[in-house]
């Protein structure tokens, strides 16, 4: 085995249980994790310049998986296109959700890292859009300081959803860009390509909304597996994509396809900061009678409630805010 002394840097494109595909300089390596990454070494803080810099404690890391798609990692090349990841480089951004490991407490699950754009994908119909879920994606993106682009797919079935434009008005009011596309007819695909160019984007959405079909329409060569909408358990659709994967786009940029997420919890968002994560509400925070202490629920003189009544904030978005606030 030819072990290089020098560690290389690459990007994690794909992961399956215990194995990570890392791209570097046009090469693709199958990597495993160094056991050090699973641990957190605690050094003394009293005198950081001390030469006797001994590890005081070893703790388990608080993640489901320390590596996320899009991570820039340092790895050791062991030859035969195999390697070992030794370090995760600092992330520029991350999109996380809470994950419960059975029998343990809730951990952070980083879905993707170093992304530039979050694309919540919703079908015009089949499955019916759940706007509450969209609000969760948007709040999570705002929390990660990532811009979001709402994509509505299956526009050839627009006749099935007469209230679509009225529902989307709330998001236009909030300032989110919206693109309507159809993978079958090609409607809106070229505009979407222009938006994706040069960006590192991540597609998120429920099962069966057509994320993978959209990806195939954007870049036909990908030829990813797609299914008809599943009639699976409780009419919730069947997962077609079962793992996270990043693809390089031929017109520039990268895109990450994610498996359908029926639920999306919010990670490390405090109740007090939630209103800041609704862009249309952020300007009113602090203008209430009770200032920053206002919960925007039933307090008299609440500026946000006044703005809702005045039609400046959608009542649906306000209801979403209240629902999320109740969870935090």
């Amino acid at each position, binding site marked *: 085995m030819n072990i290089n002394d020098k560690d290389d840097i690459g990007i994690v494109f794909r992961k399956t249980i215990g194995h990570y595909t890392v791209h570097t300089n046009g090469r693709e390596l199958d990597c495993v994790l160094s056991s050090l990454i699973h641990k957190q070494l605690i050094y003394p803080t009293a005198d950081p310049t001390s030469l006797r810099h001994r590890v005081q404690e070893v703790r388990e890391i608080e993640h489901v998986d320390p590596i996320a798609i899009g991570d820039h990692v340092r790895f050791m090349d062991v030859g035969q296109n195999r390697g070992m990841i030794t370090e995760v480089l600092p992330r520029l951004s991350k999109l996380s959700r809470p994950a419960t490991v059975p029998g343990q407490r809730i951990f952070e699950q980083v879905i993707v890292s170093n992304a530039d754009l979050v694309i919540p994908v919703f079908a015009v119909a089949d499955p019916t859009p759940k706007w509450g879920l969209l609000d969760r994606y948007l709040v999570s993106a705002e929390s990660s300081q990532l811009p979001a682009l709402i994509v509505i797919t299956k526009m050839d079935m627009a006749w099935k959803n007469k209230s679509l434009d009225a529902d989307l008005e709330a998001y236009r009011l909030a300032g989110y860009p919206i693109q309507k596309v159809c993978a079958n007819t090609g409607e809106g695909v070229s505009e979407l390509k222009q938006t994706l160019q040069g960006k590192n984007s991540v597609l998120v959405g429920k099962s069966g909304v057509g994320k993978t079909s959209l990806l195939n329409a954007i870049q036909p060569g990908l030829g990813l597996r797609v299914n008809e909408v599943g009639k699976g358990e409780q009419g919730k659709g069947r997962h077609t994509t079962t793992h996270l994967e990043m693809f390089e786009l031929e017109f520039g940029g990268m895109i990450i396809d994610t498996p359908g997420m029926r639920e999306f919890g919010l990670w490390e968002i405090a109740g007090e900061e939630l209103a800041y994560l609704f862009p249309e509400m952020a300007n009113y925070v602090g203008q209430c009678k009770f200032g920053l202490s206002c919960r925007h*629920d*039933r307090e008299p003189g609440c500026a*946000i*409630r006044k703005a*809702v009544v005045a039609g400046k904030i959608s*009542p649906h978005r306000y*209801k979403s805010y209240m629902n999320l606030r*109740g969870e935090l």
Partner: protein
Amino acid sequence: MRSMAASFGDFRCGHCHNLVSAAHTFSGVNNRNHCPYCLWSCHLDLFVAGDRLSACKGQMKPIGLTMKKSRNKYQLEKRGELMLIHECIECRTLSINRIAADDDPENILSIFQDSFLNSRQTQQQCESQGIVLLSEDENELVYKQLYGVGIRTLAV
């Protein structure tokens, strides 16, 4: 116990502060939207009953009674269900609500009697929204709806 604003479940009345159970067993309705003791409500719905989209959240005062319009065009006028009229004290929105099984009938009667003293403005607002306030002439009808028998029978 959650507040009325956040809930389709049990709540504490914002007006009389009594605890209110929203269980269908007690109320006989699916959307318990007013207190059975004081009959005050909270302005929570915006477009349709139960949508909970209103941000006003003001208290709603019971201002009178009306009859639910029957869809049966052959039915005699004013037959149907007795309904409470609520008016939001913040934004003056009116809404009509079903009377629940556990609503206090004495309170309903006193609201009916107080409604004769409603201001002209309130009466006009009801008229403009097609809500017909029950008048003194409908005393017998209200008693029949509440107790199953008319006031004369009840007096005997």
